[in-house]
């Protein structure tokens, strides 16, 4: 099982404890450079960037840029990378990173062909690495490390884990949680693609044993059966921390892709009803609207007291 906190924070005895190095793939592009700056401003230790053909440059006068991931990893020993390359180059960028020894790869691009995602995952499995995404806002431990594109404003350090398929709904719901006094211990963007490097159940496995975890929020949407699998896992392992879910797409027509490549209902497969009924079976209330999430969570906490 992936020790996500080990990867993101390290151990107190590590010399780089709570400042683990992150490599930004595609750091010189418009999108990559914008978010590299934002991550650095948040306190993330961006140690290198990679853009083929741009090796030797310095990003923001301090972060060295390399041509390949191998060079960047050799120079920094970083185990984490975040990818900002265009979707059609994602597979090559991911291979480059995984071959170089990256253990946590955060894949931001949207519109990556599913086959490329599956190939990258196959390689990640062989290398013992984890991919978050593609089409994810990223992963963060609020007020400590942000590897992604999320705005800092909605998030606050705390004890609730938030797992979300959607980016803006993650911000929206974290914002509502923060305003109700529920800070977040970690937020993981699963991504809106049909195939996710880290599925909801994988993300759940990463967070379920956090010692001081006080609750969990799952932000799902129509398409696939990731939510159903998660609900089953929650039942199977007897997870009993207060948990609340939200599912977007109840009003979406069937057989139409709703923005996200993965958000499509085929017959009954992927329908909101199927997800809601599985969460209900796991005794997890499902909010009707984002603003209701903290209310339901507070209710769950009262009951568990």
């Amino acid at each position, binding site marked *: 099982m992936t020790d996500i906190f080990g990867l993101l924070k390290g151990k107190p005895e590590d010399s780089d404890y709570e400042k683990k190095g992150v490599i930004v793939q595609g750091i010189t592009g418009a999108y990559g450079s914008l978010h590299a700056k934002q991550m650095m401003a948040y306190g993330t230790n961006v140690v290198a960037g990679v853009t083929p053909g741009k090796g030797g440059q310095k990003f923001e006068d301090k972060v060295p840029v390399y041509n390949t991931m191998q060079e960047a990893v050799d120079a920094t020993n970083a185990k984490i990378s975040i990818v900002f390359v265009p979707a059609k180059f994602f597979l090559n960028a991911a291979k480059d990173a995984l071959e170089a020894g990256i253990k946590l790869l955060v894949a931001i691009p949207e519109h990556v062909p599913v086959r490329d995602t599956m190939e990258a995952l196959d390689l990640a499995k062989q290398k013992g690495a984890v991919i978050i995404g593609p089409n994810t806002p990223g992963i963060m431990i609020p007020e400590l490390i942000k590897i992604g594109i999320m705005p800092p404003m909605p998030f606050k350090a705390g004890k609730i884990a938030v797992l979300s398929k959607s980016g803006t709904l993650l911000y929206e719901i974290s914002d509502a949680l923060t305003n109700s006094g529920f800070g977040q211990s970690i937020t993981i963007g699963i991504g809106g693609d049909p195939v996710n490097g880290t599925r909801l159940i994988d993300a759940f496995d990463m967070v379920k044993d956090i010692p001081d975890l006080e609750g969990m929020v799952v932000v799902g*949407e129509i398409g696939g059966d990731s939510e159903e699998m998660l609900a089953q896992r929650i039942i199977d392992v007897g997870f009993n921390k207060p948990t609340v879910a939200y599912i977007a797409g109840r009003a979406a027509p069937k057989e139409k892709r709703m923005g996200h490549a993965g958000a499509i209902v085929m017959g009954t497969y992927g329908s909101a009803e199927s997800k809601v009924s599985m969460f209900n079976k796991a005794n997890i209330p499902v909010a009707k609207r984002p603003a209701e999430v903290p209310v339901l969570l507070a209710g769950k906490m009262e009951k568990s007291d």
Partner: protein
Amino acid sequence: MQLLEFQAKELFREYGINLLNSISSTNIEEGRKHAKELGYPFVIKIQVPVGGRGKAGGIQKCQNDDEFEIKYPQVMDLTIKGEKARAILLEKMADIKKELYLSIFLNRSKRCYTIIASSEGGVEIESVKNQIIKEIGLGEVSDQIAQEVAKEMGLEGKHAEGVIDTLKKLSKLTIEKEAELVEINPLAIMQDDTIMALDGKFVTDDNSNFRHPELEKYQEKSAIEEQAEKSGFSLVELDGDIAVVGNGAGLVMSTLDMLSDNGGKPACFLDVGGGATTESVYEALTLISKLDRVKGILVNLYGGIVKTTVVAEAFLKAYEDNVIDLPVFSRLKGTESEKATEMLQGSRTKIFGTVEEAINAAVMGVKN
């Protein structure tokens, strides 16, 4: 994108999968010619990119000219699950011994291609208990797996050979075209013991389109969808009167849900993408202005690092340029929202503090 049956069958034919004679047409004059070429009896099949055609009366047997003259226009005029006929396929009547089921799909949770086969075909696979499910990884189906599938379907001799052959061709097609789903339902054992695909379903992975120029001819987009795609937006047209715009697919879906809960009818789903700029919001408004049925626009933006003043500018510009003449009900979360509210004072855009307020105002607003 889901291809039409006749398009799926074009691909099947290319890969050597057995098919009955069939011809597609888009009007009755063409259809009459094809009817002569094909000869009676045949089946008239509506071509729509959704399932459930049979139940909706979209598949009709046809024995002679008189029936043809009645049934062709009947089928052509059907709307199934909101989809109008794109074409009509005339297909020779089949003499069937038995109907089977065969599909290969991209298994999202197992992250590999997976075969579903059954000795019961011609019905919705969800309702079939007797399903054979085999995960096959990322490559083509092996001889061994194909043989196992045929055996588990209870097939022998020529029937088994035919299914094995079809399955291997189907797998080659799935992988080479990067399909999300390829389905033959029913796959029929004919009276002469050959195996034939009587129907075809093919769903592409649109994200791999850049590697498949050969599939481009099947792309079916309205002018407005095409424009949305060029701007990097996702647009789904719906039949209500309130256009729903936001940033991020999840947020827009959520807004759609809340609007529907509160009695509003969405006219479209429009996701302008993660960030919002003056240009993108202006373009979104331009697109919406082309949808006749829209009476109001509901905007839900979670700005984050985006300045809401930037969005406010887009609204003002759209009114100034006469791009829109509709009320906008907007919730803008982000920085500088007070200033944005001030900027929009006196315009037809109302800014609300919460999504609920914006939704309720929109629902009331379009009633007047």
